[in-house]
């Protein structure tokens, strides 16, 4: 555990990517199995303890320490593990056992022993060790190390391609003994069955036209609509079918009727959408389905879903990821020559110029797409976000002016700043009502100034939330707006972010709620 906590402490304070890679490689080479395997799982977010989660530690610290002082401290530090590790009093000499024996001990602990076991561990660790230990359970290490970097470090360590690790990653098991054996040339490459696992998806970069495509020939690309649903991977074979989300989480249970209807031997990539007969409805409609983990037949009938398929990874046992997109599209076209409902082919958009696509992506009379996707025809299916292959070109955002009402401190690297803002507009009664929350879109300099605004213009405090003078107007950009019963204003903005801060604009010039509804919802 000492080595692991040192690793985390070093990683969080290292900004150089190369230095991070070498710290990780050093750790993998100097740490024995199964410790390094558990560390790998922790670093890639693959550890999962059912009975110990963030809430477990929150309760624990509230029993030991004054709750109000804990709240103030947590608000200040912005990281649960760090707050608790600093507040906890070390009772015994630091004597932490190895990472694996700790985890194995907790796996064996009966429910009623769990609490005293965790207290015992915290009592005998230093502040840094407590921090690393708690981080194992609270999800998201927030140390500036993505699982991609960790896998890159593994690839460097074993002198293999990152791509090779990505391809088998989701079939590997804790504590990764076979993986390390392979990387150290002491064993064969772990064998993974294609149909047992999720395959990491290929992702797109946001398009910057001048930089990415101005010089490119439109003939070398295909275009499709960017559907406003959730990305899914369909893994189907004779034994059945599974649906995975973009992050590899299985979502099959929420869509039993789709699972049942799919027959075949393939891995497909597409967008899950709400609607009937391939007529997509809004994301909000899909949200209804996503919220239900085990939907009733009646609910399914009234909220049908389908999938627009745009890519294929495996077909009849053949790995197509090493084939160009043009060939993969041919496979899809021939498969979809007959009706495969609830699967439908995501049609390509015929185009000759970028200007034409620019117009298409902005047509806003139908709500179902959020722009276009542009994909290079010769591109292979590469896990991750390779450069220059796939681009997403979203519709231009909509804008609205609103007034800052509340602010809250951010987490992680923004923990000291008031960086989460609730903003609102006036309703018919000239009451200011919140219409959304934004966390991004400002520069570091602007954040410093916003933070100062919050500190000097606070009028009220509700725990960690500060209410501020209603004087500051911000221009908010957002992707979409819909009716919502959850908000007092009756509307909800999709992905709101700061566009501009109007330090000089008077609040009485801000559009009213009625005007917003009129211009965007009617």
């Amino acid at each position, binding site marked *: 555990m000492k080595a692991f906590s040192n690793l985390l*402490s070093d990683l*969080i*304070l*290292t*900004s150089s990517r190369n230095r991070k890679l070498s710290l990780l490689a050093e750790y993998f080479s100097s740490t024995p199995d199964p410790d390094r395997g558990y560390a790998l799982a922790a670093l890639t977010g693959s550890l999962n303890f059912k009975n110990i989660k963030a809430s477990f530690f929150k309760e624990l610290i509230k029993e030991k*320490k*004054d709750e*109000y*002082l804990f709240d*103030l*401290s947590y608000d*200040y*530090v*912005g*990281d649960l593990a*760090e*707050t608790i590790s*600093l*507040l906890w009093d070390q009772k015994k000499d630091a004597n932490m056992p190895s990472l694996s024996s700790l985890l194995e001990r907790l796996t064996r602990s009966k429910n009623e022993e769990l609490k005293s076991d965790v207290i015992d561990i915290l009592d005998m660790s230093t502040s840094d060790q407590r*921090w690393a230990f708690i981080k194992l359970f609270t999800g998201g290490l*927030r140390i*500036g190390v993505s699982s991609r970097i960790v896998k890159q470090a593994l690839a460097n360590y074993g002198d293999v391609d990152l791509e090779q690790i990505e391809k088998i990653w989701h079939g590997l098991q804790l504590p990764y003994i076979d993986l390390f054996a392979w990387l150290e040339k002491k064993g064969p490459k772990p064998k993974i069955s294609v149909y047992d696992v999720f395959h990491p998806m290929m992702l797109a970069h946001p398009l910057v036209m001048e930089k990415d495509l101005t010089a490119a020939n439109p003939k070398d690309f295909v275009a499709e609509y960017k559907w406003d649903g959730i990305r899914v991977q369909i893994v189907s074979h004779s034994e059945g079918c599974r649906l995975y989300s973009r992050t590899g989480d299985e979502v099959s249970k929420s869509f039993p009727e789709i699972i049942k209807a799919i027959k075949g031997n393939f891995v497909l990539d597409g967008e899950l959408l709400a609607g009937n007969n391939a007529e997509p409805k809004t994301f909000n409609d899909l949200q209804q389905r996503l919220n239900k983990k085990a939907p009733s037949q009646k609910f399914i009938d009234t909220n049908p879903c389908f999938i627009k398929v745009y890519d294929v990874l495996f077909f009849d046992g053949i790995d197509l990821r090493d084939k160009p997109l043009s060939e993969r599209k041919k496979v899809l076209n021939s498969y979809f020559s007959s009706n495969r409902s609830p699967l439908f082919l995501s049609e390509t958009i015929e185009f000759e110029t970028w200007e034409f696509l620019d117009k298409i992506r902005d047509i806003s009379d139908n709500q179902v797409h959020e722009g276009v996707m542009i994909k290079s025809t010769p591109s292979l299916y590469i896990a991750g976000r390779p450069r220059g292959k796939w681009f997403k070109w979203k519709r231009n955002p909509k804008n609205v002016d609103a007034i800052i009402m509340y602010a809250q401190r951010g987490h*992680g*690297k*923004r*923990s*000291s700043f008031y960086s989460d803002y609730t903003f609102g507009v006036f309703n018919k009664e000239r009451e200011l009502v919140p219409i959304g929350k934004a966390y991004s879109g400002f520069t570091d300099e602007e954040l410093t100034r916003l933070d100062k605004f919050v*500190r000097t213009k606070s009028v009220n405090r509700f725990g960690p939330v500060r209410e501020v003078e209603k004087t500051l107007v911000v221009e908010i950009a957002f992707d979409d707006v819909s009716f919502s019963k959850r908000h007092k204003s009756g509307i909800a903005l999709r992905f709101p972010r700061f566009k501009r801060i109007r330090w000089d604009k008077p609040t009485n010039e801000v559009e009213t709620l009625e005007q917003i509804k009129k211009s965007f919802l009617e």
Partner: protein
Amino acid sequence: MISIDNKLYIKDIDTYIDPFFPVERAIITHGHADHARAGHKHVLCTPETSEIMKIRYGEKCANTFQTIKYGHSVKIGKIKVTLFPAAHILGSAQVLLETKKQRIVVTGDYKTTLDRHLDPFEAVPCDLLITEATFGLPIFKFNKPELEIERLLNNISKNKENTFLIGAYSLGKAQRIIWLLREVGFSDDIFIHGSMDKLCDFYHSKGIKLGTLRKATIENKKDFKGKVIVAPPSALKDRWSRRFENITRCYASGWMQVKQRAKQSQIEIPLVISDHSDWNELTNTIKQTGAEKVWITHGREDALKYWCEKNGIEAEPLSLQHRDETNEQ
């Protein structure tokens, strides 16, 4: 009763403590810029503080200086004023305002941990304690500074190719870091930023041994390999620091207790060394003074106010402006 208000103005004797604007009479607790300003007519402070003010602002930064040593008093009108060591920086003082009926202590910035290059802090019994709360949250528990210095030295010995740039305030913190390094036997030349030159000389003249100090000029970049450079925190990100190669950025401050803070400022070696009190020092001092009432000048006042009230002590935050939350001075 002594009439003191929330700007630390004592009406009976027309005197301010650490005012931010020029006044007739000021008592100055210590030489940091958020406490000591130029332009007052009459200043009362310790001899060291007056020297520091003259070094920083010039000989004529006040019309007259009246200095008293620790433990000594002057009578102004009906009020007896005594200065006690605050162990924050050289010359830093707590101010006791005393009449037959009442005792008020203004701590200024202070720490109670023993720091052998400064006079030790004394808790002064009083009715009203006016305290700082820079680190007024229970997460702030500072280790022995020697342990932090040891960690730094370990790192230096492992990375001899690097240049170790330590951010430390020019007055007080910089000299303390150098002094601590010397105490554990670090005898290598230490390089300093030009702005600290005179203040280091001043510490030296007071018998605080800082060893051989050299100015960090650019003549020979290789000179800085494996060396320690002490500079004000602002210089860490400034163009000034680009003259060095392979920099490892270190920062000596109580703020470095929080890893996420260190990460935000791109500090690779945080040195948790503070010239302020941590949570236990603040609360213990309040208890030791026996004060029935506490005013909190600046810092994280919410938590300390809450603690006071839970312990039956009346508490009120003054939220003195100009004392920047992120400024440790």
